[in-house]
């Protein structure tokens, strides 16, 4: 029997950790005006550094934890100094992508250093618990509650009563005014990132104690929940963040108590989407996060909704594209490629074509329409599962499977898009991330259909209806099939981007407020962008499933989304030639660096980070 009271205590304990993370988000959002994806990674580091202090240096838990938290604080400050400050004047998308890249770099470095496996976290209080009436209260719960309350109270007192705290709040409200009043805004920024690192580190230690284990990707779910808590509270308010954290903790604890812990994450992510959909300003907040930038934008405070624009100077670059005859010449060369490539390189060529298609799909929605999606691999997965399951169940030509997979991809994309199109800039990223995670957990847990973590095996080779049901079994055949689909997709997408539809997408990206004032139904056009993008991603998924003959949920996790995003940014957002170029480059690079396989994700993260810092418009220029 689940006891209500113990669930509440438990929820309050976990909620305290969410509140700490949420405060980190809120502080950074207020002062630096960005959503810090690396917040979850700092949290993970807090846990791991403490673990290292205990297990490798033989320190007792308390000093190890203090050392770990201190280091995390320092890393938080260092990240800002080294990576975020230099791009402050760049396009508005730069800090967002940079923190995303940092998160990937930190998480995958942690996997390299401490192994991808879950590690036991020392907990001297593991067995101490009491029963009060029916309720079960553990020492860890009490410790978390106490630590959380001490942190929150001292932070609140600090912000409220010290000069520095007041200066920090002033900076968060209006950096320019604060600067004029003599506040050292740069120092406040450092302090903010330090505090965010500190709170993240403390949270990591507490969660380590709570679960008695830590794992390198733990930053993703906890980061997202911290963000959910911050959002519930209105994202820029500290009391709101605390209330949001506690509410989320209790809610989650009750659902996992009464429905089963399988649903814990799904419920939390769905709650995030619901809040984003119905009350993007949070339960308590009033600050406009809505897509038009609210009244603020109308009053001229937000000069452009384009993420590629900078608040400081126009961002322009030379744009390289291939079209017409040169494009046809490249296509001919690509068709001839299997005659010079061996079987391995034919396979790599096929992967490059499939990922090019996926990159084209992402560049439509993220580049042309300006809606950065980090849940894209899930749409790819929807297509792959559709084609795989249909292909296993009945004997259908690949053309039909491509259309079916594309259609399902489009439907899933519209479902994700419905939430995203009401939001602006950085918040869209969180919404698409949550949708991607929800779809991923559907792949994982809808075992009757997807066969869960086992994956779908024995997907038959594609049979081409146009060639009288010819069945493709060799690598060159797969390559030509993927190339044909890619070429067709490029031709059609290129035409679409040049039409009124593409122009309207770019207008919405550049200034959504001006676009709607000019009569553009922005939501309709954005959903069209999501649908087109989802269709292409779904088709790419179908090719992928039939190429590998085996798919599993792991193929469609966030990291895959991140890789595609890197390809697109590297090539130049909104530039079809760039998308293909970025995809081919990254796939070939992966192959060349095969021996360093484990470093792959770190390398992708670095590629993205460097691209943002030094060529935010990508190698071929964004359009």
């Amino acid at each position, binding site marked *: 029997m689940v006891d209500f009271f113990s669930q509440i205590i438990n929820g309050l304990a976990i909620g305290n950790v969410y509140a700490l993370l949420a405060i980190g988000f809120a502080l950074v959002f207020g002062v630096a005006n960005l959503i810090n994806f690396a917040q979850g990674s700092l949290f993970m580091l807090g846990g791991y550094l403490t673990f290292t202090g205990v297990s490798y240096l033989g320190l007792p838990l308390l000093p190890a934890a203090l050392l770990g938290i201190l280091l995390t604080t320092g890393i938080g400050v260092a990240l800002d100094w080294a990576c975020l400050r230099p791009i402050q004047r760049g396009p508005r998308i730069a800090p967002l992508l940079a923190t995303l890249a940092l998160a990937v770099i930190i998480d995958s470095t942690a996997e390299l250093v401490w192994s991808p496996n879950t590690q036991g976290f020392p907990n001297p209080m593991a067995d101490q618990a009491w029963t009060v009436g029916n309720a079960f209260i553990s020492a860890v719960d009490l410790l978390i509650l106490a630590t959380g309350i001490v942190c929150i109270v001292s932070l609140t007192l600090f912000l409220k009563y010290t000069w520095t705290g007041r200066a920090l709040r002033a900076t968060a409200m209006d950096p320019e005014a604060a600067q004029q009043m003599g506040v050292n805004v740069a120092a406040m920024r450092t302090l903010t990132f330090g505090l965010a690192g500190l709170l993240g580190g403390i949270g990591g230690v507490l969660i380590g104690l709570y679960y008695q284990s830590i794992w390198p990707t733990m930053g993703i779910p906890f980061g997202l929940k911290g963000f959910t808590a911050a959002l519930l509270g209105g994202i820029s308010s500290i009391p709101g963040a605390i209330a949001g954290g506690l509410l989320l903790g209790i809610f989650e604890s009750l659902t996992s108590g009464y429905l089963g812990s399988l649903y814990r994450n799904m419920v939390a992510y769905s709650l995030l989407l619901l809040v984003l959909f119905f009350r993007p300003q949070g339960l308590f907040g009033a600050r406009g996060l809505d897509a038009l930038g609210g009244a603020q934008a109308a009053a*001229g405070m937000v*000069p452009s909704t384009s993420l590629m624009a900078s608040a400081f100077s126009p961002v322009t670059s030379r744009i390289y594209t291939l079209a017409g005859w040169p494009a046809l010449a490249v296509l001919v060369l690509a068709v001839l490629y299997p005659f010079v490539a061996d079987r391995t390189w034919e396979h790599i060529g096929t992967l490059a074509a499939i990922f090019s298609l996926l990159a084209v799909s992402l560049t439509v929605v993220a580049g042309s329409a300006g809606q950065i999606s980090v849940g894209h691999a899930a749409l790819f997965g929807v297509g792959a599962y559709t084609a795989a399951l249909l292909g296993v169940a009945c004997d259908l030509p690949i053309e039909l499977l491509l259309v079916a997979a594309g259609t399902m991809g489009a439907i899933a994309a519209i479902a994700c898009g419905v939430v995203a199109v009401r939001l602006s800039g950085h918040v869209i990223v969180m919404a698409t991330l949550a949708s991607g995670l929800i779809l991923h957990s559907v792949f994982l847990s809808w075992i009757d259909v997807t066969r869960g973590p086992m994956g779908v095996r024995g997907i038959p080779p594609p049979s081409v209806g146009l060639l009288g049901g010819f069945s493709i079994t060799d690598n060159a055949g797969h390559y030509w099939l993927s190339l044909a689909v890619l070429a067709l997709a490029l031709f059609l997408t290129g035409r679409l981007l040049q039409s009124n539809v*593409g122009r309207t997408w770019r207008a919405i990206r550049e200034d959504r407020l*001006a676009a709607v004032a000019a009569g553009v139904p922005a939501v309709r056009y954005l959903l069209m962008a999501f649908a087109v993008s989802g269709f292409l991603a779904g088709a790419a998924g179908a090719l992928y499933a039939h190429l590998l003959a085996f798919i599993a949920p792991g193929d469609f996790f966030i990291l895959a989304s991140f890789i595609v995003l890197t390809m697109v940014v590297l090539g130049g957002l909104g530039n079809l030639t760039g998308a293909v170029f970025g995809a081919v480059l990254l796939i070939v690079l992966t192959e060349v660096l095969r021996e360093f396989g484990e470093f792959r994700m770190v390398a992708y993260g670095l590629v993205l980070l460097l691209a943002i810092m030094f060529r935010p418009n990508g190698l071929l220029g964004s359009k």
Partner: protein
Amino acid sequence: MPPTRPTVTDARLVVDRVSKRFGGVAAVDQLSVSVAPGELMAVVGPNGAGKSTLFQLINGVIRADNGTIRLNGHTLTGRAPEAIAALGVGRTFQTSRVFPALSVWDSVRVGQTVSLIGGTPSRRRFDPVTEIAAALLRPGGLKRRERALDEQAEATLKLFGDRLWPRRHDRADSLSYANRRRLEIARALVDRPSLLLLDEPTAGMNPTETNELADLIARLHAEHGEMSIILVEHKLDVVRNLASHVLVMDRGGRLAEGSPDDVLADPRVVEAYLGRRADGSAGAEQTT
């Protein structure tokens, strides 16, 4: 002689006891005003009087707390900005909002969305799927319609002499400040709105440019007899030359209303508004 005020039935725009508060500030407070077809009304008033907020309320970027706004008999309050634009409201923004990375040509073509795909009050010509299919296949009917729109866009750009047309392939963010304002006006004008809202169109322009734009507005007013224009303007000589009717706002409400000569001589107006500009440099002040 001031024109007789339109009654509620024959007015183009009727603003009826509309209010909007921002926290403690009543930006627009129980304001009522109406505009006749083909009328050019100027709205003046000190900084913070609520002039821009009135525009945001008319075009639906901000929702009114209470009161109603009607255009040609359609209720605007509660509709989305794109639906209001489709009903015939074109506007510019005080801090000019152009599409930075779009070319001048594309920016103006975006202003024709309603003509191309339809919308309130007519039905849409395309559902999303046919629109994508049409964009890919470009059937003859669509080509013809686009050609007509191209001509319309060209004519609109050429209204501005050689300011915009020769630069039609340039990015909007490469334009000068004055040209961005012109581009915004072109975008608002190109789909032939029945009500054009211009929020300080001459701000930041030198006297020559100001006169040129004032001449253009006068020409538009004369040529498009049916189009009503509301002009927010701090430069009072521009107001005197262009407007047949002036609304003076202060603290969200109506301070005075009437013909330019009467209103601008009203002692209350002089005190609330001109008093701060007694140095005579009417309109030299830049507002932000």
